[in-house]
């Protein structure tokens, strides 16, 4: 755990620093790889910028909306630079909606856009897991294994490191193989999402659970499995519609 990098008088919060590095790496990959899916990099750039700014504003607005009375007599704190005043879920929803609007306006194929941003998400995920590791969050269950890390009183599974390795392997596979020509648009994104939920279902078993249901089931694992199910249904649906489309074209 290393939440702060102290450089002389400068204290850099490591989790935020890692997320920024992930964002830069993701943007670079996005720019380089978007042409593989016949996407204009300007559209991707615009969507990314508008999405990021909207997500930040949305996260702050969502936080304020949660308890507007707390800002009574302290209205200027709305502009506070403190990231603790951000609601990540609200930010993601508003940022996602903004990206959707940009893409709709450009009349771009949503599936091709999702395929393109797979590279961005692929680079962000390892950075996200590393940032959690640096903050000491999402820590593992106790272990006797030699690679256990001493955290919060005992040797624990470095579960965020497992997740980082899994995310990096997936990123390398995606970079090396995408796009697969025989697969319909959207497949790269959906395969990436399904693979991510698959390793999450597997590896979160080594994480100290935050919420336990009856008989020791982890609620997080069940939610991840349901998301995996949804991603696989969508993927199969994409395959089915693309085959039907090809059949129709042959008939014509």
């Amino acid at each position, binding site marked *: 755990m290393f939440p702060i990098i102290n450089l002389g008088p400068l204290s850099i919060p490591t989790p935020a620093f890692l997320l920024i590095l992930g964002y830069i790496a993701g943007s670079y990959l996005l720019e380089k790889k978007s042409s593989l899916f016949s996407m204009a990099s300007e559209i991707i750039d615009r969507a990314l910028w508008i999405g990021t700014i909207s997500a930040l504003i949305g996260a702050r607005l969502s936080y304020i909306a949660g*308890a507007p009375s*707390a800002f009574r*007599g302290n209205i200027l704190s709305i502009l506070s630079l403190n990231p603790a005043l951000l609601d990540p879920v609200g930010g993601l929803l508003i940022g996602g909606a903004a990206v959707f609007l940009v893409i709709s306006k450009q009349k771009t194929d949503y599936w091709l856009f999702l395929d393109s941003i797979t590279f961005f998400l692929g680079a962000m995920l390892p950075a996200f897991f590393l940032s959690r590791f640096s903050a000491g969050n999402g820590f593992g269950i106790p272990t006797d294994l030699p690679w256990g890390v001493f955290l*919060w009183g005992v040797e624990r599974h470095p579960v965020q490191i497992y997740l980082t390795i899994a995310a990096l392997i997936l990123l390398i596979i995606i970079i090396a193989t995408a796009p697969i020509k025989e697969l319909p648009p959207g497949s790269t994104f959906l395969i990436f999402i399904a693979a991510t939920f698959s390793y999450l279902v597997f590896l979160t078993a080594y994480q100290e659970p935050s919420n336990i249901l009856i008989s020791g*089931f*982890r609620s997080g694992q069940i939610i991840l*499995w349901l998301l995996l199910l949804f991603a696989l249904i969508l993927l199969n649906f994409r395959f089915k519609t693309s085959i039907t489309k090809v059949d129709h074209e042959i008939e014509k």
Partner: protein
Amino acid sequence: MNKKSKIISITILMTGLAWIWLSRFPVDSIPASLVEAPQVGFSAPDFTLPDLDSQEISLSDYRGSPVILNFWASWCPPCKAEMPAFQKAFQEYAGSDLQIIAINATNQDSIAAVLSFTEEHGITIPILLDQTGFVSKEYLVHSLPTTYFIGKDGTIKEVIIGGPLPLSLLRIQANGLIMD
């Protein structure tokens, strides 16, 4: 392609279900809230420190009440910037059982500077003096200010590293702790 992908999907889903069953959490495990560690979900480590009147105060004295624990120093600009917000919150929540405690990193500060700062800014929050730096070390305080939000049961609910924290954030956290 479609049939093959269906078989793969079903295999992945069934393997996932089997893994969820196999990796169930042992019901006899010790919950994190019973272990002392300076992390969200764990029990806040207990300590005893003197205040400015040399009276010994322990965190365990406040068990049953929510506590906001702020680590600070008089030379640290964000600590000084956020102290008025803490003072305001201290006054606003005086009628509730919420406790606000400021732990001065006295091993990197001086009592004279602390007294001068509190007098100058009218700070009446209980200030504890960590003269050896033991409590800061125990709470893994890497940077000042650092604030811990502790629930009535003594479990750490939130940790915020850095500042200045605005009054609105303190109100939101305080209300959450009181209602918890």
